Each structure stands twice: as structure tokens, then as C-alpha cells.
């Protein structure tokens, strides 16, 4: 049985293909741990309520709000953050399609799009819309983001 007392404990997290030791309280969210312990600041702290998607990461390949996951829950599970997609084709697509304004929501959108393209390379408009409703862009650059997502899905299909 995995267990953790009230004290801070050292646990291992598997992030972007590497194993890291972090010191966590049971109450620490994955978002807090990624940012404060590992310096992975791509996952953004915004609503902290699972509403905006800015903190999206992948756990076991599935999109998750890292603000709604305890770090301790994710022991033994592969975690993917936006940092692992540096210089990736999907990053280039978002740049080329101008699917960026202030950039704050962009990591969440890219990770969501990445998971979508992997899982549904034939995603239609309805599926794309359903998935992208998980993320908010306060600059309201949705049309460009939608274009980028479509292009990324298309690229994955052809890969």
C-alpha cells in the first residue's frame, strides 16, 4: 500500500521520461510540485479549479488538470509536460498558425491537442470541439487555435 504521513516525504515522479525525487505533502497538487520542485513552469497556475485548462499535463497519456491531481497520486505514472514538446512539430504548427497571443494558455492547448491527435488522428469537427472545450483562451484567439489543432491532427494522420 502506498502511504504518506502528515510529514513531507520524498517520492519519485516520472516526468518527461526522467525520474525525479521530490519532497511533497500529501496535500500538494501536481501543478505545485511541477512548478515549485522541478522548475517545470510550462503548466500554468490560473483558476486552480479545473476550469481553464492552463495547467494541463498528460498522465498515462491522458489529459489531466494538474491543479486537480495530488502529486502523490501520480507516483509510478508517466507524466508529460509541455517542456517535452520543445521544438516539436506541434509547437511549430501553433507558431505557424499564429495560435498564440499572450501565450499563457498555449501549453495547455498544445498538450490537449497533442493527446487528441495521438488518440483520434481522424478526429472530426465535433470531437475537436469537445476536446478543446477543456481550455480557455482569455485573448479569445480560438479561430487560430482551432486551425492549428486541425493542422496538427492532419499532420499526425499523415505521419
Amino acid at each position, binding site marked *: 500500500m502506498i*502511504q504518506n504521513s502528515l510529514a513531507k516525504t520524498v517520492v519519485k515522479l516520472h516526468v518527461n521520461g526522467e525520474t525525479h525525487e521530490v519532497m511533497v505533502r500529501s496535500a500538494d497538487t501536481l501543478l505545485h510540485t511541477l512548478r515549485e520542485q522541478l522548475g517545470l513552469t510550462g503548466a500554468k497556475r490560473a483558476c486552480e479549479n479545473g476550469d481553464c*485548462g492552463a495547467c494541463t499535463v498528460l498522465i498515462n497519456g491522458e489529459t489531466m488538470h494538474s*491543479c486537480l*491531481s*495530488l502529486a502523490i497520486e501520480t507516483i509510478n505514472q508517466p507524466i508529460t509536460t509541455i517542456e517535452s514538446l520543445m521544438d516539436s512539430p506541434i509547437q511549430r504548427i501553433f507558431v505557424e498558425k499564429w495560435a498564440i497571443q499572450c501565450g499563457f494558455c498555449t501549453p495547455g492547448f498544445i498538450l490537449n491537442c497533442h493527446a487528441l491527435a495521438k488518440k483520434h488522428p481522424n478526429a472530426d469537427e465535433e470531437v475537436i470541439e469537445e476536446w478543446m472545450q477543456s481550455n480557455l483562451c482569455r485573448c479569445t484567439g480560438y479561430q487560430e487555435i482551432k486551425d492549428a489543432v486541425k493542422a496538427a491532427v492532419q499532420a499526425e494522420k499523415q505521419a
Partner: protein
Amino acid sequence: MIPFDFEYYKPETIPEAIQTYQELRNQGKKVIYYSGGTEFITFSRINQMAADAIIDIKGIRECHVLEQQGDQFVIGSAVSLNKITESSIFPLLGQTVKQIADHTSRNKITIGGNINSRLIYREGILPLLLSDAKVKLARSEGELVLPLTNILDKELKIGSGEFLVQILVKKSYGSLPFASLKKTKITKVSYPVVSIAALVKDQRIRTAFSGVCEYPFRSDQVEAALNETSLSMAEKINKAVSLLPAQIIDDIQASREYRTFVLKNALHEIMDSLEVAPA
């Protein structure tokens, strides 16, 4: 950030979970069973929920079952809403839970957590009410299977130390005509103004509602009105709405008058889509 500390336990078996709960309770601690955890984290963050220890049931194999066993569907309480939808195991349930929250959240929210929610909506329970679902509870005295309605009094009444392991639905309900409709105020991702799940069994329509009153419900009186063959569609719906088990909600999502208007239209839509044949 969650402003208090708690102990975390992730047992691998039901007896281990029950024993851990009892030991912690004997130490005078407040203990909560934890599954998806979205509600625990969001409420704890704003000091509206607290615990000295949480027991994460996601390590228990039985809570992850999602399959047909004999003549029934077995759905573990820790199965995520998205997994239920993707499995197509019980299409009415899959379609109904697909309307809850957003796609990313549905990777974390579990069916057990949804039907046990502190919020009033608990939309995942609607198909279970329509399909006479049973639940399997883990208790210190052993497992107990009983009809869902036996532990439902506006909300689930699960005893101290007990937890929901599985939901059992007769397979025959998976092939019945159904409809599921959620009406929100503005955006698709929102709490319901009105949410209705319906299915047709033996040429009679069954309906269950969320967002209409302070708790999700299925009502014999409402269904009797909707199945009254001597009435026109409009008369059936007006009579059904007059027989609701509690007052219609009046809140920031919708005024009582508007909610009543939306409810009637939604019922029309449901009845039309199911093309309920006269008995």
C-alpha cells in the same frame, strides 16, 4: 493550494481499505474515501471540506472493472467518465456522463465520485435510476449488493466506513431506445438548467431529471403522466411538470419560470426523439 495537511493511503484490496479506515477512525481521525478527487481538491482549497486522512480507492482492482459479466454490466466506482463513454458498454450512461464537465475533467472524475457528489446535480445517477441499477458496497461485515434506490434519499446514504465498489446494471437495458438531453445557460460546459435521461421499456417512457429540483430524481407520478395515452403531448407534459416531487430551482443559472419553460421544451424534445408509441 490545499491549506491543511492530511495522511494519504492507497490500499490495493477492499479489506485493506476497510481496515485502514477503521484504524484511522479509532484514532479519532476524520477519514474520507477518495476516488477521482476533483471535488475533494476544489472544496478543500477553499476550506469547504477537510480530512485528517484520505483513502484512495484507485488502487483497488474491483473498483476499475468495466465489463459484461453474465447478464449484467459491471462498472467499477473508480472508472472515469470518459472510459465509460469510450467503452460504449451502456450507451445511455455513456452519453449522459459525456455531458458532465469538460473532456479533460472527465478523465479524472469517476462515476462513483459523480453520483456521490456534494453538488446537487449528480447527473451520472440518472441512467442508473432508469435501469434499476444495483450497487455493491464494501463494509466491514463483507460486501453487500442492493438496489441503488435502497441507499438513495435525495443523495446516496452510505454508512460510515463503507464505500461504493461497483454498479451493476442488467445487460438488457443497454439495448433499449434512449435519449439524454442537457440544457445549459450559455456554454456547453456548465451546470444544467435542465438535464433529462430517458429510455423506453415495455412501450413506457421512463425519465429521470437533474438540475430541475434540489436533487436528481425519478418519479412514478411524473412517468404515469407522461405515459397517459388519453392526453395530448402538451397535456402530458403540463401534468408531469405539475407533479414534480419538489419545487423547481430558482437560482443564478435560471429563474424558476425560465427553468419550467426549458423543462417543458426539453421534455417535448425527449418525447419526440423517442417517438413513444401508445401503449
